[in-house]
């Protein structure tokens, strides 16, 4: 009897759900799961696009970590890029969001202006613009000259070139800012009133009320931005071409060059799994670190 009710749990109409999700299921199997598994397989082969992949064991990974002169440099550049852009962008976004979260006139217009750079994302047009602005005798250096500041070789040496690319990313903090702004509006005013009655100043209530209250959205942003940053490609490719001295040669660019210029697809797959591993480790660490630090109104169940 019990068994019968269990079988009866699904109405005929419920199976229609499978029909509606069928496109996604097919897409998932064919364009996500299959590529995911094959790139893992390729990473253990000598696949070069025109040959049949044959198994070479850990050779690609060993080569990456021991003999490839580019790899550690790319890894370092990618990590530095991520460490600059993610905190830089989010701190900027949070700072401005807190400033704007007051009764300010023309908030719509201000929000629009701040959001504008985010529209262009990783577009080539903006990357070219950046290249031009930061050239040796470009507009930025001209501004510095008029302010009687020394010129900077923005794209001329490897560490400043990396900074310049980071600036492009940080400049686009508007979308995170809009998210933070929306989150800030949700913080109940009564909490601030209670805090100020208890004698807490603005700084104190920022750290003890604002930050904990919007921690889920900050956490979400850190994870998504980190995943994006670790895969950066366009700005390095267009603004600096990976140079100078491979100073902006991020892992994404190494992957592109190995896979689509030299067609060393097995080897590039190994690189892609290193990037994936990096993302996985960072995400897990963030989750670990955030447990108990991120505040959920509903206790985390949904």
């Amino acid at each position: 009897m019990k068994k019968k009710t269990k079988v009866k749990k699904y109405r005929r109409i419920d199976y229609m759900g499978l029909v509606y999700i069928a496109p996604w299921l097919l897409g998932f199997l064919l364009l996500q799961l299959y590529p995911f598994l094959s790139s893992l397989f390729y990473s253990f082969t000598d696949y070069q696009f025109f040959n049949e992949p044959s198994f070479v064991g850990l050779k690609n990974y060993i080569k990456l970590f021991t003999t490839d002169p580019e790899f550690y440099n790319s890894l370092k550049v990618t990590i530095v890029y991520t460490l600059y852009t993610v905190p830089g962008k989010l701190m900027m976004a949070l700072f401005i969001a807190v400033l704007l979260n007051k009764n300010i006139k023309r908030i719509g217009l201000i929000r629009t202006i701040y959001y504008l750079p985010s529209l262009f994302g990783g577009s080539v047009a903006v990357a070219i613009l950046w290249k031009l602005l930061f050239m040796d005798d470009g507009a930025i250096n001209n501004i510095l000259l008029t302010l009687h500041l020394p010129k900077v070789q923005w794209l001329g040496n490897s560490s400043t070139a990396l900074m310049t690319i980071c600036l492009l990313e940080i400049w686009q903090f508007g979308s995170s800012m809009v998210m933070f702004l929306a989150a800030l509006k949700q913080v109940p005013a009564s909490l601030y009133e209670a805090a100020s009655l208890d004698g807490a100043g603005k700084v104190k209530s920022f750290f003890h009320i604002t930050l904990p209250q919007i921690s889920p959205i900050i956490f979400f942003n850190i994870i998504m931005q980190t995943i994006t940053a670790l895969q950066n490609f366009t700005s390095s490719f267009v603004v600096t071409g990976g140079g100078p001295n491979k100073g902006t040669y991020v892992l994404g660019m190494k992957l592109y060059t190995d896979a689509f210029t030299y067609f060393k697809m097995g080897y590039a797959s190994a690189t892609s799994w290193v990037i994936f591993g990096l993302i996985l480790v960072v995400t897990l660490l963030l989750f670990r670190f955030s447990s108990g630090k991120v505040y959920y109104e509903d206790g985390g169940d949904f």
Partner: protein
Amino acid sequence: MGKRKKRLNKIILYIVIAAVGVVMVYPVIWMFLAAFKTNSEIFGSLKLLPGSWSPDAFIKGWQGTGKYTFGKYFINTFLIVVPTTLFTVGSCALVAYGFARFKFPGKKFLFAVLIATLMLPNTVIIIPRYTLFNKFGWLNTYLPFYVPALLACFPFFIYMLLQFMRGIPRELDESAYIDGCGTFRTFRSILFPLLKPAMFSAGLFQFLWTYNDFFNSLIYINSVDKYPLSLALRTAIDSDANVQWGQIMAMAFVSVLPLIILFFVAQKYFVEGIATSGLKG
């Protein structure tokens, strides 16, 4: 005393907001103005305004250096972006409907899979996708853009629409069933009209991302007659040594103009899309 301090704070606040605002728009305005400048005006000159306002750079830039004008690249871009956007929104809405309203077997597991793919980085699947599309003979066509869109390979949008759909009362569906509607008819006549704003937001972001996308165009498209704007611009800067930067900036500006217009027209949906679902721009 307190009042004066408050006023001073307010003034500082506005100065900071204005200063950062200038940093935000300056590059974009500079891009527009550079389109009227000569190379010598662009480099080594501080003047923001150009010496003359001749639209030459726009005309010459539009004509391009090769066989095709920028008109062609614009058409190509829209041929990629518009169908991709429509397919994405359509397929994702149906999949979201499937997840939101039906209790089919295996739903919990499949939903967990969907959520897991939210974090699946593109980098790790791009090489096999490329070889797969090569086997299908789809390289140098727009199918690598259309097919993932048709097959709802954008878990972000599914999730976003799903969350929105959860907010629509189920009683509406039930009453449609009682009236004899099938599931698709219920979706079309009950849910679809209510879902429109969310679909519009999702569509805007997919439009924006596909429009700006460079990596996929770079690897999948290799003949100039199929180039979208991103590839055309990229080719323009390294084609010849004496690049006329004014023309490049003119075309760069023209290429981002549709985004700017779209943003101003549909601002409400952008802001709501980001604020409610946590989309990144």
